[in-house]
């Protein structure tokens, strides 16, 4: 703890050292969680940083499955409560703990009170006693357990299959030793022959392990007695003093064997750790140089498979939060479906499940959640090797380290991806707005010249011949049409970028209709149009600029799709809480089933025809929607099409004081 939180009652509390660190020792015992909780309470009271440690001894390699699970649960509990967890391996628990405690500047060590009978301490030593002795200035607390039931006496040990072959080899080596001793017998003293057997036993101990080496030790003593101690070829020695020789020989042989085995085991453990650390480091290094999620998943799978000798699948959520396989594995789909269910549960709950855990343990895989700082990244599934050996606690811890590394790497990749996307969006938006201003300026300015010039030309009707006048008129009408098209394009871009604010004001509909008809006077010249707006039509809350655009587009549409001289009708009426506006023509109507699609962007009934580019109606729909109304099209009885839109009469119309 670097900074001590400010404490107002400081004066009333005992002054404590500023840098408290608590270390709690975890064991497979069922009391262990209680000890962890006690440590957590103490850490909270002292505002101290705390750590949890588990020391794996060669003896503990052979824990029963139940013990192993309990141990993992306790480790998780400690992690969950905020402890930094570590598992070490060593021969003597107390030594490892005190060394670690000193290294990490721990001020208090907490462990559970022993529950086993006192006589065991006599033979096997007491961790508590050793720790108290070794810890020096560090306080050691042994917390009481509230469970009275003693630790189950019979621990179900994991049975490894007996390797009969190894016993055979042991026998062979002892036989060889006997032959060698037989050759040496005439020239050497008996004590030297014992040395031959000792060498043989060291060989057995290094190669074949505990059982065979005990077997070899006994065999050696028997062989020595039978062949070389007089009377030869008889087990009963002449001199009773030889009994002592046998006992000492047996003890020395066993001790040497045992020590050899221990050294070998420790060397193996160290090698194994080295390999795992290297692999973890390699994986991190590869993570750093890759940035796609797929690559990261492959790297993680490869390394974990390498270290743990298992098959790995990585499941990551897609855009719809559905888990998708990212590993490289083939399985039948049926079992995979069931497995996916387990994976889903793990993803949803953020807890490990499946094989070797208490949750859904009939699953064939072990699933671990990929948890990163910002949340769940996915699930990692592990299919253990064919031997189905359960993971040792330190292995499991290591697997979790791998998993966390993977989760962080994937999170980093995801964040990078997202950042890239945001960047792209900003770019696109910038492009859009620069295009917008380019269109608005670079197209409109020349258009202004063209419209101006053509109208100037048309003014001189009397001096132009009919043909030239006709051409000038075409140029003029087309330039007007282009202006309307540019206006539509700009409006759509604005609507889509969300830059358009609907500024509603209560106003008479006839004013907007009037403005629209005036603006489009020229375009409508060949179509009789009689607006029918009843006098009793109330004020409507609209953005007149936008509604003018809607009316303009609908009228232009009618003009484009009907022959010259064909009438266009414009009317409006009240229906419930809405004012309905209708524009109807006598054109060819709308093909069956296209009534909705004509409002889609760039959709046109007859793409080859003259007319718009298919933006007009899209804009109408966007504007009417922004007003809270609806727009729809239908075929008109008697031929032609009808477009209607609603303008809701929302809110209180403003009151006007009458004159006088």
């Amino acid at each position, binding site marked *: 703890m670097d900074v001590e939180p400010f404490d107002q009652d400081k004066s009333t509390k005992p002054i404590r050292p500023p840098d408290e660190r608590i270390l709690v020792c975890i064991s497979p015992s069922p009391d262990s969680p209680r000890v962890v909780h006690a440590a957590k309470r103490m850490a909270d009271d002292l505002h101290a940083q705390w750590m949890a440690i588990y020391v794996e001894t060669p003896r503990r390699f052979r824990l029963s499955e139940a013990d192993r699970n309990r141990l993992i649960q306790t480790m998780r509990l400690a992690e969950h409560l905020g402890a930094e967890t570590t598992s070490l391996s060593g021969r003597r628990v107390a030594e490892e703990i005190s060394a670690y405690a000193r290294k990490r500047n721990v001020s208090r060590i907490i462990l559970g009170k022993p529950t086993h009978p006192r006589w065991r301490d006599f033979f096997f030593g007491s961790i508590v006693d050793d720790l108290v002795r070794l810890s020096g200035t560090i306080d050691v607390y042994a917390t009481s357990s509230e469970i009275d039931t003693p630790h189950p006496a019979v621990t179900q040990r994991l049975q490894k299959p007996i390797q009969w072959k190894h016993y055979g080899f042991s026998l062979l080596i002892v036989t060889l030793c006997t032959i060698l001793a037989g050759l040496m017998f005439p020239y050497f003293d008996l004590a030297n022959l014992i040395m031959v057997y000792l060498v043989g036993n060291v060989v057995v101990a290094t190669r074949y392990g505990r059982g065979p080496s005990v077997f070899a030790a006994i065999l050696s003593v028997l062989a020595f007695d039978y062949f070389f101690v007089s009377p030869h070829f008889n087990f009963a020695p002449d001199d009773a003093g030889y009994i002592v020789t046998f006992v000492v020989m047996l003890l020395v042989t066993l001790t040497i064997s045992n020590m050899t085995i221990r050294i070998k085991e420790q060397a193996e453990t160290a090698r194994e750790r080295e390999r795992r650390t290297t692999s973890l480091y390699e994986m991190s290094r590869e993570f750093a140089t890759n940035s796609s999620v797929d690559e990261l998943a492959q790297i993680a799978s490869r390394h974990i498979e390498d270290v743990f000798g298992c098959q790995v699948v990585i499941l990551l959520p897609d855009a719809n939060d559905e888990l998708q396989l990212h590993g490289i594995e083939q399985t039948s789909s049926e079992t995979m479906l069931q497995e996916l269910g387990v994976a889903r549960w793990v993803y949803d709950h953020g807890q490990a499940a499946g094989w070797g855990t208490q949750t859904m343990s009939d699953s064939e895989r072990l699933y671990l959640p990929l948890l990163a700082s910002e949340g769940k990244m996915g699930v990692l599934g592990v299919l253990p090797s064919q031997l189905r050996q359960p993971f040792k606690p330190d292995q499991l811890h290591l697997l979790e380290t791998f998993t966390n590394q993977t989760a962080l790497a994937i999170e980093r990749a995801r964040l990078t991806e997202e950042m890239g996307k945001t960047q792209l969006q900003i770019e696109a938006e910038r492009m859009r707005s620069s295009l917008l201003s380019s269109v*608005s*300026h670079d197209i*409109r*300015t*020349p*258009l*202004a*010249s*063209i*419209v*101006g*010039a053509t*109208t*100037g030309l*048309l*003014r001189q009707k009397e001096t132009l011949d009919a043909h030239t006048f006709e051409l000038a008129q075409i140029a003029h009408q087309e*330039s007007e049409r282009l*202006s309307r098209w540019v*206006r539509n394009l*700009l409006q759509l871009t604005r609507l889509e970028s969300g830059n358009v604010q609907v500024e509603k*004001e*209560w*106003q*008479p509909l*006839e*004013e*907007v*209709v*009037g*403005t629209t*008809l*005036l603006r489009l006077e020229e375009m409508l010249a060949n179509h009789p149009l009689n*607006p029918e*707006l009843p*006098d009793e039509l109330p*004020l409507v809350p609209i953005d*007149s*600029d936008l509604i*003018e655009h809607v009316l303009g587009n609908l009228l232009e549409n009618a003009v484009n799709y009907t022959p010259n001289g064909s009438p266009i009708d414009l009317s409006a009426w009240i229906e419930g809480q809405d004012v309905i506006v209708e524009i109807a023509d006598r054109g060819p109507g709308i093909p069956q089933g296209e009534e909705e699609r004509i409002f889609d962007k760039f959709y046109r009934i007859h793409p080859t025809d003259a007319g718009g580019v298919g933006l007009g109606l899209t804009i109408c729909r966007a504007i009417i929607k922004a007003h809270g109304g609806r727009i729809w099209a239908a075929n008109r009885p008697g031929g032609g099409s009808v477009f209607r839109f609603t303008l809701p009469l929302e809110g209180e119309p*403003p009151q*006007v004081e009458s*004159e006088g």
Partner: protein
Amino acid sequence: MSSPGEEKPKSPLILVIEDDSQIRRFLRAILTHEGYYLIEATSAQEGIVQVGLRHPDLIILDLGLPDKDGMEVMRVLREWTSTPIIVLTARSQEKDKVAALDVGADDYLTKPFGTNELLARLRVALRHALRAVQGSDEPVFRVGDLRVDLAYRKVFVGEKEVHLTPIEYQLLLMLIQNAGKVVTQRQLLHDVWGPDYVDESHYLRIYMSQLRHKLEIDPTRPRYLITEPGVGYRLKIE
């Protein structure tokens, strides 16, 4: 009045401040053909200098000049000259137009605009400038079949007399005084209803609608009382 040279011995001198050469070219072609004298400036700075040197009768000012904001040019000019200014705007934003009118522009044209529109605005602006000097108001205002006797406060459509309420008459009178020119909503509300009503635009809309129903044959296709969307109203005289 529409043909130059009647009221003044010389044809009016018009200054065009516009950076786009094609627009200048088109304005030159139209305006010289119509008998106006033309001087051109391609930047705001040059334009301001030309106004001081040549004393034009009218200024056509593009609001989107590269060297200075058009609104700023307006402010500078209005400090020492009342020469009518017509602003050209490529922006469809109504706020810009209203702002320009508030700062002292006489009228505006949105690009693209037609020749007839341009010439009509020019004539109206020149006439109002002249009237401000000579004060030659006539007692009867006529346009189409609308006739307003300003001395007796009587309004006729064709031969039929139309009865207006005092506010309706006030509104009509203001538009007649500015005949052909755009009058902003704010200006109308301020002058007819008073300073407290400048934001109550629905008053204006309702009374304008009433006026249309009384004076226009078809209120949805007005011939006289024209709405300039988002800006104000204009009494059309041609």
